[in-house]
């Protein structure tokens, strides 16, 4: 009992000596914090940006100081553990291990936090004047300082030398996160639907507190904040237990505890195996070098880590061989576990009744429809909270899981093979308890033919989220009407190549409202076929506007999902909406205002068209390669105009056999003033007629 309670009672005599002996640590800390915190205040006391950074713990210097000073302070206060003479001398003193440990912790934490206390105190008043409270940032600094001090004390208990202590500090800081990411690499390669930025990716980020807190903010997750608060006493207790069990005669060894030697060597071996195989895989040398990378990386790093752990080159023995065998067995188990999906990950589709709402990415839509629709700062994800739509999402998900055979996992490149030119589909479910995320690369045809996809994209919930009248399109600054121009993925020509054909129109409030209403009605009336068709959009409406955050939002009122308040990003101030031929109301409005005629006048000024045959190849790593060969130049303007009726806006993933690019010169035959590009499938009869004609 006496020994246990002493872990909470520092020796004031030793604490005083520590502060006296290592005064340089807080002194250097004070200088650093001064130049990062107080000095900028003296130069520019009204720097709002600086206060924002400081208050949110996003100041780069603060981020660096928070782990660095606990590292230095822990290293110096615990240095006595790493020499037989000093450890004997310290343990001769009338101090229990508990008191020595507690005193060291308090000393290191005090030396690390003292400069921050002074800095935040000085910053508090001017911060308050500027409207920023320094208290949360200080609380976070205090929490992270205690966390890192406790973590680095654990590192010291595990090691027997100063150099190794620093190394293990780094190891413990990043190894849990790295381990999650490394397992994620195998998951991404071996599991169909694995989303690297989902649960494990989030976990990896959150296991590095600096990344997590500085990225997400202190109040982003009460659960994780509580976890970090609780981790401080947990780490402190771990260090205390290790100290009580530490054999002092191990001073000078690299690693003190055999169990940690196993953790260290196996983690390093796992990392080496993964990294080397990825390098070999990335070089595109094939499967054999990839497997060789696995083997060679594991063997090399096992031997190297054993050498470090044993502080000796003499590790070529039976123990190393045995460890290698155990590791190989464990690695094989992991790979088999994932390869044969023993967790049922791939088939896991949530029951609709357990889903509060589901999210589906929208950025595959331009790929599918070959036009950039609804571009006014829309959120990346569509949200579906109506029961029938949730059922449609889970139904779509189920149908995608049936496509597993398309997925050829034979490397760690991260991209599934055999799906080149496919769609990237993200699914995210908010369950009654927890989340579930999946990411798939699937053929475009699957989505286009899927009845659930049709149900979703024709649902009222989808329409509400894409209704331009629900967006924050406030007062217009400028409205530009353009004829068909290049934008998006295959931007061979700069947009302004067609800018000479654009109309910067002056529009009244009534006309603006009419235009938006026409667009909204056309959008609401779109069918799934309309969306997935591949039309040549003759017009693009570009609007610079002042965001109107007070607009009554029909979607926000209708949706049961808490995640969305606005159809568009309230901070966005630019919208670009393509107008396909089936936007009848919008086209009618353009005709009635006389814009239609002016915007299509270029058709009468066509001079010639350069045809280019583009070949599409699916690379082994999932990438899509385009190579082009110049074709004939067509000079018959009438034929070109006829061909335009069968043209598409942009090439899409479904054109796996390649396509034709027709670049039309407009204006003077000697000196065309603009170009327009349109596209045709490789087997398009329009091109056959054109070339034949």
């Amino acid at each position, binding site marked *: 009992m006496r020994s246990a309670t002493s872990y909470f009672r520092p020796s004031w*005599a030793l604490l005083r000596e520590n502060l006296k002996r290592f005064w340089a640590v807080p002194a250097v800390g004070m200088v650093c914090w001064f130049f990062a915190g107080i000095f900028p205040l003296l130069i520019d006391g009204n720097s709002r940006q600086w206060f924002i950074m400081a208050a949110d713990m996003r100041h780069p210097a603060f981020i660096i100081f928070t782990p660095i000073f606990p590292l230095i302070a822990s290293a110096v206060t615990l240095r006595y553990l790493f020499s037989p*003479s*000093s450890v*004997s*001398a310290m343990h*001769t003193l009338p*101090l*229990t*291990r508990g008191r020595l440990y507690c005193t060291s912790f308090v000393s290191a934490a005090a030396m690390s936090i003292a400069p921050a206390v002074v800095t935040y105190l000085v910053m508090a008043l001017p911060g308050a004047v500027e409207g920023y409270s320094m208290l949360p940032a200080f609380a976070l600094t205090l929490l992270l300082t205690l966390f890192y001090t406790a973590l680095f004390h654990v590192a010291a208990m595990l090691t027997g030398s100063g150099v190794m202590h620093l190394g293990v500090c780094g190891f413990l800081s990043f190894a849990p996160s790295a381990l999650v990411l490394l397992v994620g690499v195998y998951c991404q390669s071996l599991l169909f639907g694995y989303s690297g930025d989902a649960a494990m990716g989030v976990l990896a980020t959150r296991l590095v507190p600096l990344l997590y807190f500085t990225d997400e903010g202190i109040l982003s997750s009460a659960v994780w904040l509580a976890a970090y608060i609780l981790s401080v006493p947990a780490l402190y207790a771990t260090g205390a237990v290790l100290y009580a069990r530490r054999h002092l005669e191990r001073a000078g060894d690299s690693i003190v505890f055999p169990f940690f030697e196993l953790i260290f060597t196996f983690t390093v071996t796992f990392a080496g195996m993964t990294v080397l195989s990825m390098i070999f895989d990335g070089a595109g040398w094939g499967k054999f070098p990839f497997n060789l990378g696995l083997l060679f990386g594991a063997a090399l790093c096992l031997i190297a880590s054993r050498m470090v752990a044993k502080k000796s080159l003499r590790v070529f023995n039976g123990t190393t061989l045995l460890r290698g065998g155990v590791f190989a067995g464990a690695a094989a188990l992991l790979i088999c576990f994932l390869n044969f999906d023993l967790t049922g990950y791939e088939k896991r589709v949530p029951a609709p009744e357990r889903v509060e709402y589901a999210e589906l990415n929208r950025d595959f839509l331009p790929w599918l429809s070959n036009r950039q629709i609804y571009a006014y700062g829309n959120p990346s994800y569509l949200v579906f909270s109506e029961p029938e739509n949730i059922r449609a999402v889970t139904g779509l998900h189920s149908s995608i899981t049936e496509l597993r055979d398309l997925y050829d996992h034979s490397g760690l490149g991260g991209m599934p093979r055999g799906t080149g030119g496919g769609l990237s589909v993200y699914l995210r479910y908010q369950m009654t308890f927890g989340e579930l995320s999946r990411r798939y690369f699937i053929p475009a045809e699957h989505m286009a033919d899927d009845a659930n996809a049709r149900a979703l994209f024709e649902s009222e919930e989808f329409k509400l989220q894409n209704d331009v009248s629900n967006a924050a399109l406030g007062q217009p600054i400028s409205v530009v009407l353009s004829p068909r121009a290049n934008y998006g993925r295959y931007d061979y020509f700069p947009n302004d190549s067609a800018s000479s054909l654009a109309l910067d129109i002056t529009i009244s409030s009534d006309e603006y409202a009419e235009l938006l209403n026409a667009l909204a009605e056309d959008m609401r009336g779109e069918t799934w076929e309309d969306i997935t068709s591949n039309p040549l959009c003759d017009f693009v409406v570009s609007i610079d506007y002042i965001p109107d955050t007070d607009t009554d939002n029909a979607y926000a009122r209708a949706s049961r999902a808490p995640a969305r308040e606005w159809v568009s990003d309230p901070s966005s101030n630019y919208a670009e909406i393509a107008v396909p031929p089936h936007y009848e109301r919008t086209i009618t409005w353009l005709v009635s205002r006389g814009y239609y005629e002016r915007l299509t006048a270029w058709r009468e000024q066509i001079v010639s068209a350069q045809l280019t045959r583009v070949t599409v190849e699916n690379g082994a790593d999932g990438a899509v390669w385009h190579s082009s060969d110049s074709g004939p130049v067509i000079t018959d303007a009438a034929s070109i105009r006829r061909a335009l009726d069968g043209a598409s806006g942009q090439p899409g993933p479904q054109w796996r056999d390649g396509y034709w690019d027709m670049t039309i010169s407009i204006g003077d035959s000697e000196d065309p003033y603009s170009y327009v590009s349109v596209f045709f499938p490789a087997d398009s009869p329009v091109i056959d007629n054109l070339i034949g004609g």
Partner: protein
Amino acid sequence: MIEVMALHKRFDKNAALDGLELRVKKGSIYGLIGVNGSGKTTALKAITGILRPDAGEALMDGQPVYENLELKARVGFIPDELFFFGAYSLDECAAFYRRLYPNWNSGRYAEMKERFGLPERGRVTRFSKGMQKQAAFLLTMSVMPDYLILDEPIDGLDPLVRKLVWKYIVDDVAARSMTVLVSSHNLREMEGICDSIGILDKGKMFIERELDELKSDIHKVQAAFPEGTPEEGRYDGLGVLHREKRGAVELLIIRSPEETVRAVIGSRSPLIFDILPLSLEEIFIYELGGERNALGDIIF
């Protein structure tokens, strides 16, 4: 009183202590001797609570020393390898000790500092090896320990300082009944100061006796016999540790009571028969040399 019972300590696969038993009476000076690697330093570190034994107990006043704060405040230990805080002067070290040890005696510190003539200022770590040893001794004696554990305390000290060190120790033993456990290879000095001796071998106590008793049991004998006296059975009944013939004279080391030695050899009508004084160093060599034949062959 210091009691060590069945103490075991292993370093990896090597047993440094293998069931060590040891008893030091209160107010006595106990000398722990043994060849290199016999486990002396490990034993001292286990007794002072620095190392945690794998098994067995080390008690002072009947209490375990390990993690015993009150007891450790009454123990002074000077290890073979010294350690001082990097930039500290002797006075700064003393100030630190004063805050830690309840029995710190500033008067003694001042008096000893003057006697040893150590500088008050200047880093202790920059002192010579002998001066560092003096500084450690000075600081340790100023905490007025009830138990003083010393590992090679006079190694590196000049004869005058050595004499002074022993004087302080003996005076404290006499005045305060301080209990001293000292390990040293300087057996001549140990012989002059120790009440009891323990010879450690391979982590075990080989012999543990009071010094006088140890000496009364082992004898160095010089004897010569008339020609024709049969050599066989000449020393039957005596524990002969070593026998060596130098011309007609035989030199023997015998572990038996003096009366028995006199009776047995006297009955053989020797021409020459002397019992010579035996030093601790000789006892150590003969005992361990006899035990280790190879070592004995080299020494004798």
